[in-house]
């Protein structure tokens, strides 16, 4: 109910009527409000008519009426503001923002227009929202809606004390501020208080104000407490069944938790009622595509994969999921109550629908309760995505959210998940990237007590990524300086709804400020060489790239070795390792070429091309075990590679790893190779070695069916037939 008393300024002649309509709304007198709006629609004043139509939810006609009003009075800033608010409600923030800007050009001190911009920024989790809301209040100290917005923004930033103060200010400005009361009630609920007076207070003023519970729903979802979020959206709808914004949120969150049937029904209801924003339409489109997915269930896992790649990817995902569950059960000392569902999307846009409207969530995977949604490696360029690392990261969230009953700050759950990636294998996880180097150098890392803000309302474009890095390193630091169990103790403290500052003090025995100092000192010592040498390294690697094109290999080697260890984590395209490898190969110095790629791989290099080259060199050098290990890394990065599976299968078979060989050759078949005969023959060989004779015979038959004259298969047939 943000627009109460705002239109009085816009249309003075009709202000009494518009204000009356808004008052009816504010007090929940729906029939009277409807009647009032209907009267307005008969007005000859286009702006008043627009308000009437808007009140009756006739957005299209209201939009047309505002257009006429603005055309007739182009210098009226308030008409533009109200039109902008209509568009903002109608999912068109861009045009709304333009109208607010136009209003400010006409009237630079228009508080409503400034508030409009603050609301647009708030919807996009833009850090400018706070600044704009404060500015609106400066322009109009009685603008309660701006004060309510500040309370909401403070709670989004996970600073409840500040949110309480802001909400109390709003209540001083207007004791009947329903949204301020909703914020205060939500804080009580988030703190697990058994009762809160605020929602009863709201209902005394407006018995049908479901939007109050919708506020609670929103914050529970933002805090990843989806089950409770759903509960409050249901309460909101019970009071206000026409509130399609709440219905859409209910549908989406049901979908997120795997309740597809009800989720879909709710979203269809929204769609049919004309509520068709991107969240609703994209979610419905995604759910329509579920028919193309196959579901594989075991006792503790549910894997949902697109049928076009199911045969290949499902065995890898399921095996890794089970391995991760077994590991985390020991590490977190707990068992999950139900199976974990992992959904793998080959189309990134489908995955992205899952995170719509959620700030600071990973771009590769996301966890909702026991449901993990993630990109498929097929959806990304080879070498750009470590799917297994993402899976372990997300699964860590499942455990941490379950252990804390979803009462955990964002920085901790992300930090622990990042920590787990490299704990699983040192070459997993993300490397120290230029954004993090810059943040360390420019002292942009956030204090631990307010690190959540870096995820939710970043103040610079890469702050979310930097915050992931920082949170991960904080957990590394705690595990190293204290112990891994200390992290678990902190996790259990968070479950008691204790703040970060209190947890740091309790478990680490120091104030957060002191922790920050120690952590930063530790981090700076760890990254000193790279941070200090980064600018020089950037210049020199450009020169190295030029030299690598035409220069003699000796020059490249000398220059490369000088800078390689200044920034050893740089393993992207055009890394020093790559230049050194090529230079050594030009000199036919294979041992040194191999050594460069071995370092590249151990540091976390992910290029399929380079790692396959490494495996070739290792094979040539007789290091078959190492070659297999190199290729096996690629299974976790880009398994959609027939050659990879063929080579690894052969190596495993040679080394007596028959089960590994069977899995790899089965993956070759799943890749739908052109050469069916040799692929099936290889699988038959592996199955035979694994003593699966009947399966081997079946594959051999398929090989010879494709190519009856295939001699190696004929030899095996004769051998297996005892002839």
């Amino acid at each position, binding site marked *: 109910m943000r627009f109460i008393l705002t239109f009085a300024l816009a249309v003075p002649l009709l202000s009494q009527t518009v204000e009356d309509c808004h008052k009816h709304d504010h007090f929940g007198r729906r029939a009277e409000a409807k009647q009032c709006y209907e009267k307005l629609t008969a007005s000859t004043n286009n702006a008043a008519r627009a308000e009437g139509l808007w009140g009756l939810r006739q957005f299209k006609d209201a939009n047309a009426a505002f257009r006429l009003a603005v055309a007739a009075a182009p210098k009226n800033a308030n008409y533009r503001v109200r039109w902008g608010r209509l568009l903002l409600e109608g999912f068109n923030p861009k045009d709304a923002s333009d109208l607010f800007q136009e209003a400010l050009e006409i009237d630079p001190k228009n508080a409503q227009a400034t508030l409009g911009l603050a609301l647009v920024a708030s919807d996009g989790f833009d850090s400018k929202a706070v600044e704009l809301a404060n500015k609106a209040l400066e322009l109009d100290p009685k603008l309660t809606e701006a004060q309510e917005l500040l309370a909401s923004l403070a709670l989004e930033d996970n600073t409840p004390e500040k949110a309480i103060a802001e909400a109390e200010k709003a209540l001083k400005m207007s004791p009947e501020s329903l949204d301020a009361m909703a914020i205060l009630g939500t804080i009580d609920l988030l703190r697990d208080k058994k009762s809160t007076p605020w929602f009863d207070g709201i209902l005394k003023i407006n018995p049908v104000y479901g939007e109050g519970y919708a506020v609670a729903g929103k914050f529970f979802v933002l805090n990843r407490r989806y089950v409770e979020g759903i509960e409050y959206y249901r309460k909101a709808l019970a009071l206000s069944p026409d509130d399609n914004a709440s219905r859409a949120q209910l549908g989406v969150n049901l979908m997120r938790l795997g309740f597809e049937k009800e989720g879909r029904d709710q979203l269809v209801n929204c769609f049919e009622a004309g509520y068709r924003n991107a969240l609703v339409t994209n979610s419905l489109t995604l759910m329509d595509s579920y028919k193309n997915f196959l579901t594989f269930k075991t006792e503790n896992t549910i894997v949902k994969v697109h049928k076009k790649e199911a045969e290949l990817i499902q065995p890898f995902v399921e095996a890794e999921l089970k391995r991760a569950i077994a590991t985390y059960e020991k590490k977190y000392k707990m068992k999950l109550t139900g199976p974990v569902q992992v959904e793998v999307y080959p189309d990134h846009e489908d995955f992205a629908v899952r995170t719509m409207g959620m700030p600071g969530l990973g771009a590769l995977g996301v966890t909702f309760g026991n449901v993990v949604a993630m990109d498929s490696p097929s959806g*990304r*360029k*080879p070498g750009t995505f470590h799917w297994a690392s993402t899976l372990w990261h997300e699964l860590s969230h499942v455990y941490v959210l379950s252990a804390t009953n979803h009462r955990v700050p964002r920085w901790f759950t992300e930090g622990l998940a990042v920590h787990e990636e490299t704990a699983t294998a040192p070459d997993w996880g993300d490397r120290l990237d230029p954004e993090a180097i810059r943040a360390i150098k420019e002292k942009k890392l956030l204090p631990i007590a307010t690190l959540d803000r870096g995820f939710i309302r970043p103040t610079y474009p890469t702050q979310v990524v930097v915050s992931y890095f920082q949170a991960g390193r904080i957990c590394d630091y705690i595990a190293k300086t204290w112990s891994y169990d200390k992290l678990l103790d902190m996790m259990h403290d968070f479950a008691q709804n204790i703040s970060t500052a209190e947890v740091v003090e309790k478990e680490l025995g120091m104030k957060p400020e002191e922790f920050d100092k120690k952590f930063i000192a530790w981090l700076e010592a760890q990254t000193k060489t790279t941070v200090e040498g980064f600018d020089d390294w950037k210049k020199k690697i450009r020169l190295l790239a030029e030299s690598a094109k035409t220069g003699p290999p000796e020059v490249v080697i000398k220059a490369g070795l000088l800078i390689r260890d200044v920034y050893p984590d740089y393993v992207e395209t055009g890394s020093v390792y790559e230049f050194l490898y090529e230079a050594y190969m030009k000199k036919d110095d294979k041992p040194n070429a191999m050594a460069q790629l071995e370092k590249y791989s151990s540091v976390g290099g992910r290029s399929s091309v380079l790692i396959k080259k490494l495996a070739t060199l290792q094979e040539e050098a007789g290091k078959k075990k190492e070659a297999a290990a190199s290729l096996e890394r690629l299974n976790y990065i880009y398994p*959609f590679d027939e050659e990879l599976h063929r080579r690894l299968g052969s190596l495993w078979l040679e080394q007596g790893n028959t089960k590994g060989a069977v899995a790899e050759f089965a993956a070759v078949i799943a890749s739908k*190779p*052109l*050469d*069916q*005969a*040799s692929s099936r023959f290889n699988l038959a060989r592996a199955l035979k070695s694994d003593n699966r004779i009947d399966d081997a015979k079946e594959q051999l*038959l398929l090989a*010879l*069916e*494709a*190519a*009856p*004259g*295939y*001699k190696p*298969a*004929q*030899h095996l*047939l*004769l051998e297996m*037939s005892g*002839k």
Partner: protein
Amino acid sequence: MGCGLRLAFPLLLLSALGAHATTFCVTIAGLGGEPDYEQRFATWAKEIDQTLKAGGADIKSVTLAGPDATRARLRTALEAFAKEAKQQDSLVLMMIGHGSFDNVDYKINLPGPDVSATELATLLDRVPVGRQLVVNMTSASGGSLHALQKPNRTVITATKTGSEKNATVFARYWVEALRDSAADTDKNEVITALEAYKYAELKTKQFYETQKRLSTEHAALDGGDQSGPLLAARFSLLRIGSIQNAAKDPAKQALLAKREELEAQIDQLKFQKAATPLDEYKKRLSALLLDLARTQAELDK
């Protein structure tokens, strides 16, 4: 490859092996325009040349790359083959480089004057072989299809039309097909034009999918008449095994005849697969395959 084709294929292959025929090959790598392409085109042409020369004494190959890849030299090579070739022989022309199409005619970019598809067609028409294969792997090569179409001539192009003008990767995978035994999908130790085409087409498609790039080339194959890819399926590009040795040994003719008979029976059974109960199909197929394997073992002794 349809079922009918599978039935016919082994016979056709053996009859082709029985006759003493020569395959005349011309490979031309046109102008690269920049060093990277120059080097790439010349390397591919060289690799094709090496592969063909290692493929058997029945292949006569001319490779034109760099400054040698001129219109005059191409004409000379084809005119020389025209004088030497006979009806039982085959001709293969492989073209690598950049092409252009002006909605009327296609041209391959060469040092000096370019050569148009129309002119190429005239030169090819003069070579009196029974079968021809043109593999035009340049950009815009689809624009040459119309001019080159002719009965008994298979035309493979890297692009479907003349409007696909970006540099192609098809040539890279065509070269790979000639070296990779995986291209020989029926494992008869012969890589046919159709097998090489399918290999290169699939790898090209996978290249664009993997790199997450919009595909700017779509390969095409024109069989030259109503038989579709039949001519390409019969066109032996490269022998990669010792199959021809057995054919030359009179003592093994009976075994060869038996093998041929068994292969025909297997093809017949596969043709009836849908109408045969699965267990029975497997039983009969296993027996035939075992017999075939024993026969082959005898042949290989």
